[in-house]
């Protein structure tokens, strides 16, 4: 027998097209069976109780990155969060911070994608491609493992205290993406490329308080990339001071 428990969902509602209305929490009471995720309950609320509720979702298996939000104060994907995991029967849902809310739990991710594009997130090659694959050792491939896992859900971006005070800061996801290419043995971007992140809007802006690591649903550690990029810049500067070419 499966027994359902009564839960109260409090969801922060707002609508960019109605700026005169203040954001407000709306309360929904639902019966939840064990094993249900926050996303599954959100879908039931929209279907059965309130068709006006807006949230994004797609894969429902923590790979597409659509449903990042704040769940009882913690940033995570709604699809992988068990309703029963909080030790309370009240679940409070709010949209991801650091981005403008379009409606309810849907935020405008344009600034996030803008930062992603800034780091030229693609493989840059100078040499001509071989006929077959560009060789890469297992060890070289494993260096980029954790950064490849990023699903661009913006959990880290929402959690970042630097973005909260400086919207021009590049942010953890873009930095992790840059590191993914810098560490890739096949990437041949000019070393000067690092100069584009050599300031307070880039690698030196990070507070290194690790909120991004805490928020990442895929065990990516964007702070590792910040630290590594800083080291690379320091090495580069040292070489220049010592008059070494490379």
């Amino acid at each position: 027998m499966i027994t359902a428990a009564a839960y109260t969902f409090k969801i922060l509602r707002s609508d960019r097209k109605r700026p005169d209305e203040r954001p407000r929490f709306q309360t929904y009471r639902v019966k939840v069976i064990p094993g249900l995720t926050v996303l599954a309950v959100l879908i039931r609320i929209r279907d059965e109780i309130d068709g006006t509720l807006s949230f994004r979702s797609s894969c429902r298996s923590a790979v597409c990155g659509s449903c990042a939000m704040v769940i009882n104060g913690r940033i995570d994907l709604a699809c992988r969060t068990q309703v029963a995991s909080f030790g309370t029967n009240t679940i409070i849902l709010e949209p991801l911070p650091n981005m403008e809310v379009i409606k309810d739990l849907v935020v405008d991710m344009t600034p996030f994608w803008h930062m992603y594009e800034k780091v030229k997130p693609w493989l840059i090659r100078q040499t001509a491609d071989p006929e077959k694959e560009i060789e890469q050792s297992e060890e070289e491939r494993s260096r980029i493992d954790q950064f490849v896992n990023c699903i661009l859900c913006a959990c880290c971006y929402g959690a970042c205290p630097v973005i909260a005070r400086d919207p021009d800061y590049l942010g953890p996801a873009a930095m992790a993406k840059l590191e993914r290419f810098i560490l890739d043995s096949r990437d041949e971007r000019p070393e000067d490329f690092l100069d584009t992140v050599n300031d307070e809007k880039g690698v030196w802006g990070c507070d290194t308080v690790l909120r991004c690591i805490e928020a990442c649903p895929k065990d990516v550690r964007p702070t590792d990339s910040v630290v590594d990029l800083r080291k690379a810049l320091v090495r580069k500067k040292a070489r220049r001071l010592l008059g070494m070419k490379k």
Partner: protein
Amino acid sequence: MTALSHDVLIVGGGLAGLRAAVGLCDKYDVALMSKVHPIRSHSIAAQGGINAALANNPDGRDDTWEKHAFDTIKGSDYLGDQDAVEAMCREAPAIVYEMEHWGCPFSRFPDGSIAQRPFGGAGYPRTCYSTDLTGHVLLNTLYERTVMKGLRVYPEWYVARLAIDDGVCHGVVAFDLMNGEVVPVTAKATVFATGGYGRVYLYSTNALINTGSGIGIAYKAGVPLKDMEFVQFHPTGLIGTNILMTEACRGEGGYLVNTRGERFMERYAPKAMELAPRDIVSRSIQTEINEGRGFDHPLGRYIKLDLTHLGEQKILAKLPGIRKICIDFIGIDPIREPIPIMPCQHYSMGGIDTNARTETEVRGFFAAGECACVSVHGGNRLGGNSLLETIVFGKTAAGAVDEYLSRQPAAAKEEIVRGAARQVEGRMAALVAGGREKSFSLHGELARTMSANVGIFRERSEMEKALEDIDRIRERYRNVGVSSPTRHMNYELMNAIELEFMIEVAHTIARGALLREESRGAHWRRDFPKRDDEKWLRHTIARMNSDGTCAVSFRDVTITRYQPMERIY
């Protein structure tokens, strides 16, 4: 209504759509519309790999594209068009190398070459992979290419209708979700890469966005569909959530086990065992469950997928994503415990009828990827061939569109697209004015009847029941209403619009399944348990009549050098 205009409009931001865009956007004014941001497309969820006869694996040094073609054709139960299969398999190595050159981080063998693993129905270990996140890395790589090229993307724009007049496509009608506006879009060439229809079924591994409405939109615009009765059920969906447990679990050595502790595949495919093609493994699992050798669970009966003997190291190295999903979604660590699985709808072999050039019978309208049926998968798709199909035929679509535009077709007619836009406006007004029926409950009924009556094992009476149910749902759909007249970010409204097309997709599946009186590939009839090449070595073509009814005709399969044989594994 302000109209937009582009040379080429690509609908869908998954692998097929992005690859088509990459091939065209340097030369033409190309726009890509997708109802989700491209990186959220369902291609991202593909796990196991992409097939290409690279012969990198020490156990497969003499692999060739011809062997890949043979495996694909045998796997298709001889319903695949052999010229198209050959073209795809010949192109496969170049496609994989190209993706690698563009940055795709494939897993590697010790010699630095792209790693390849064994997969179901394949005579050689030719599935190239990146741990168990192959779709994720391929989609990211192609999206990165479009960012590099500055492709114009309209994210969260749902395409709701095709504007076809006199055998020519003039563009589409789009619904801009963020602003809630209906927008006519003219284009000289339109490419659909809108994905599969998994959500027509109740138990599906597919994402929630996989409604198949693109297929239904084409059908309702008069474009024929092909082989819709061929629905792939994946052997291993997680119980409850139906999340995919990749075939790579078995490719890496996983077992399927029943309540008696038997590796029961021995009875059904003694040579290939767990790595028989998906149609055979799914039927075997369902038979074990039906005959009482499944385990009980509050959410249904299941079979165990056992990886425990592979050891921690191998699971962490080769199947880290699977492990994480199991821990997150069912609280099981596959290093220590077997995974409870059941067969679930997974893939749409059928779809928009195209030739091997991605052309449909409508000029200026092309289709590629899962929404299309070339057919390269015939009655049953092999694992690792869908990622391949999306990229090969996305690229092919780019070539076909280029060729079409170089012949300088007449300009798209804005008045045709505006006329279609008025119809969409009318439809939305009707939904907002509202009837009593709710779209989600009709969707639920549709999915339940499809899973119950047009599933792994089929027979006449059940499919007739499904068709009756679908007719009733279509009637009730006229009275669907939505809660809010606010159109922006109104997902209830979008779901209601899509349901219209899902109903027709379901109808063509059930109709084809009823008419095809044989068992072939994934289409298994209890009342006709034999393959019948004499009568049924033919494609099913479904076309909508002007009165809304479905006309079915048949077309011979193209055979080149592989004569149909009995399928033993």
